[in-house]
């Protein structure tokens, strides 16, 4: 199918950062019109490869070529941008500036008097967004766009430099189900227009959905490249992890029939978020709270942990009613919490693993407000052991860990007070397959030991281990689905589509 030279090719690329080797004689070749997936666990070298392919870094050894010609000099940003565009994981939008200005940053349209003509800038921005049918008002500050709109704007900007090869670095990590499928529609449009894509994702089902070729990196090396259709899921996971992995889904027994309620919501409502929500979680039970990002599931979970106060109804943890909107009260009642965005609410990046892991239990670490460093480190060490956190010691700042290990620290913090109820929001967002399996396994263990677990997520793999899944749609619990559902059944329900109807 592929004729002519590959759109982009890297051969024998090695890149070292100090003593660590980020890439070792890695190679990738992306053919014209392909939608090429690049997968690998955190630290496999994907990010380094992206920054080399986009000209942000030079390889120590090896070469990059575009369409058979050697890559331009690093300093020649314009030449790079005409060959390859990238939508990075980290936003390159400037939130204070308008959408129009972000699109034409540093290449404003100047009028005859040498000054910027804002009218022309806005008009060209509107034309550009219209070309790619992005429905966004170019006059609003870019900071007011949601993640999805921002991504579309970045894609449009990337294409406006003339490149027909785009790298999408984990574009779906922060999107909810509906937004992902809209992104995929757009990607399919681009495919039809002959745009070549390199797609990076942790979600294997996405790769099977929209990619035609997949390349696996592991431990800084190229492992394999294969058409997606010829690579079964289990083999792909094995290539990523370096060992044969069983598909998850071992049978769970579920809670014993006589188990007591540990969490009970009765008629809870919060205006603008959710309405009349009632459910209970028993000891040893795992309950899923499924729904789109804006469905209200996150707000419900945050109400349980005291970050929000319900305007009506009650929240009871293991008996007495909680003081609404108080995190200390929730902690005291025995609620453990893994928040939605670990970077924002999960940890303090510059603080050590030990400090972060024990942030919720200072009173257990010493008397009268003093903290006993030895007791803290001891506690942290046991957590590091239990959760298999990869670190030289408890004193390492969390910022020095990989995403999966950072999430384990957040989990450690959630478990620090020996919770009766564990609340998790999107617990596996942006972490690699192995860490994900590990964390979900841990959640099962915790439930087995008698805690109630509430998982608010739209990630099917997170929900698969739940004993039952409550589906939240536009602020109401619309369905309760027992274990053993089919993907399409749950997805349809989350999107508010009635399959039977």
């Amino acid at each position: 199918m592929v004729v002519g030279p590959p759109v982009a090719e890297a051969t024998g690329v090695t890149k070292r950062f100090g003593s660590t080797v980020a890439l070792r004689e890695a190679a990738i070749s992306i053919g014209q019109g392909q939608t090429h997936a690049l997968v690998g666990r955190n630290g496999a070298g994907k990010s380094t490869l992206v920054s080399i392919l986009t000209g942000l870094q030079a390889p120590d050894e090896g070469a990059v070529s575009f369409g058979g010609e050697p890559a331009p000099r690093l300093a020649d940003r314009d030449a790079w941008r005409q060959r390859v565009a990238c939508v990075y994981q980290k936003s390159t939008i400037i939130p204070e500036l308008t959408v129009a200005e972000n699109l034409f940053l540093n290449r404003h349209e100047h009028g005859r008097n040498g000054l910027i003509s804002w009218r022309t800038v806005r008009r060209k921005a509107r034309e550009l967004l219209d070309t790619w049918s992005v429905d966004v008002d170019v006059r609003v500050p870019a900071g007011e766009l949601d993640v999805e709109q921002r991504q579309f704007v970045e894609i449009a900007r990337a294409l406006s430099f003339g490149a027909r090869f785009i790298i999408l670095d984990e574009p779906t990590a922060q999107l909810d189900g509906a937004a992902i499928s809209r992104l995929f529609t757009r990607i399919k449009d681009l495919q039809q227009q002959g745009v070549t894509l390199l797609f990076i994702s942790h979600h294997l089902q996405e790769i099977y959905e929209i990619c035609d070729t997949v390349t696996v990196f592991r431990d800084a090396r190229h492992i394999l490249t294969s058409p997606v259709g010829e690579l079964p899921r289990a083999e792909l996971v094995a290539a990523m992890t370096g060992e044969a992995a069983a598909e998850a889904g071992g049978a769970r027994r579920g809670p014993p029939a006589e188990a007591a309620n540990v969490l009970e919501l009765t008629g809870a409502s919060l205006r603008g978020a959710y309405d009349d929500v009632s459910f209970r979680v028993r000891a040893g039970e795992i309950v899923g709270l499924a729904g789109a990002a804006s469905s209200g599931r996150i707000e419900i979970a945050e109400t349980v942990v005291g970050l929000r106060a319900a305007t009506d109804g009650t929240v009871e943890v293991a008996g007495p009613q909680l003081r609404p909107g108080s995190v200390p009260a929730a902690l005291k009642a025995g609620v453990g919490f893994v928040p939605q965005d670990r970077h924002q609410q999960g940890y303090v990046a510059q603080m050590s693993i030990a400090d972060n892991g024990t942030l919720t239990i200072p009173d257990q670490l010493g008397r009268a407000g003093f903290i006993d460093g030895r007791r803290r480190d001891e506690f942290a060490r046991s957590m590091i052991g239990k959760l298999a956190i990869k670190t030289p010691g408890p004193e390492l700042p969390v910022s020095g860990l990989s995403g999966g290990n950072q999430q384990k620290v957040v989990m450690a913090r959630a478990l620090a007070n020996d919770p009766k109820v564990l609340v998790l929001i999107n617990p596996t967002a942006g972490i690699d397959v192995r860490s994900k399996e590990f964390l979900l396994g841990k959640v099962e263990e915790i439930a087995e030991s008698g805690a109630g677990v509430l998982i608010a997520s739209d990630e099917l793999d997170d929900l698969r281990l739940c004993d039952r899944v409550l589906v939240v749609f536009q602020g109401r619990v619309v369905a309760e689905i027992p274990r053993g559902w089919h993907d399409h059944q749950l997805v349809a329900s989350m999107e508010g589509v009635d399959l039977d109807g």
Partner: protein
Amino acid sequence: MAESRTATEVTANDPAGGGAVRRAGSGRRIAYARLRDLALIPAIIVIAIVGQLVSPVFLRGDNLINVLQTMSEIAILVLAQTLVLIVKKMDLSLESTVGLAPGVAAWLTVPVGTGHGLGLLPGGWSVPIALAVGVLVGVVNALFIIRFGLNGFIVTLGMLIVLRGILTGISGGQTFFRLPASMLYLGTEQWLGMPASVWLCLLLFAVGIVVLGFTSFGRSLYAIGGNVDAAKAAGIRTDRVLWIVIVTASVLAALSGLLLSGRLASVASAQGNGYIFTVFAAAVIGGISLNGGKGTMFGAFTGILLLFMIQNVLTLAGVPAQWIGALNGAIILIALALSRVTGGKVQD
């Protein structure tokens, strides 16, 4: 599966409900963002009315010119600080440069025998010397902040103390008098019936408004302050822009010092001392974010104008001079609270 799912959702979710609501809301917000620039205009009008009620002198031409002249030097500092704040840096040392630049010029040109003058150079050199001192201070600041990557707040705090100390050292803690004529010119001359310093201040703000709003260089300041990585990715030479901004700010501070010395016909060793607080207050009241990337030159101008109009009204109302300080502080806090209400967002 995905195909069919997609189709239903796009029609069900996007154009209806949420999307439409959001769009309507954003329209209002744009109007709001534009208004933010003019947020202080009503306050300025109210103060003008109050001032006129307090004393019929207030709206007379010579009083307004008086207000503009007394604020012209500090307004230029506000302009300089605005540039620095927009690129998400800070320059505390500006207030010491206000004293040091004309101080060094006076030191080298004032004849021996009057105070600590050395009389080394003819009087005509004073203005170039003052501006050169500004450049030098800016280069040192930029070296520390950009080249060596040190924290701007601490670097310029150190510079503030060092520069003030140098001025005290060369002047022996005394005031320079009998300044050369060229130093007095800008502070005393009238152009078309208005003091030259007022013209200069207004002209600089006009240039500032155009540069920040309508040139690629000006917009790159916002880009750097908003997200420096994104600015780099867009091909902006961020370090070069930062150098220019920091050095320009110091030169503007030196110019401000020249105007002040010219008007007072002297350089006190404490000249400019404490100005930086008013400068920051005016900038923030005028809508400049301390977190960079936000605010306009026009807003900054209305900020300093409002502060000085209020001070003038208080003086006309006969408030004892001893209480002006306390009232000034209170006014700054009230103005901040008001701009929080009109701005609608938490200030960072």
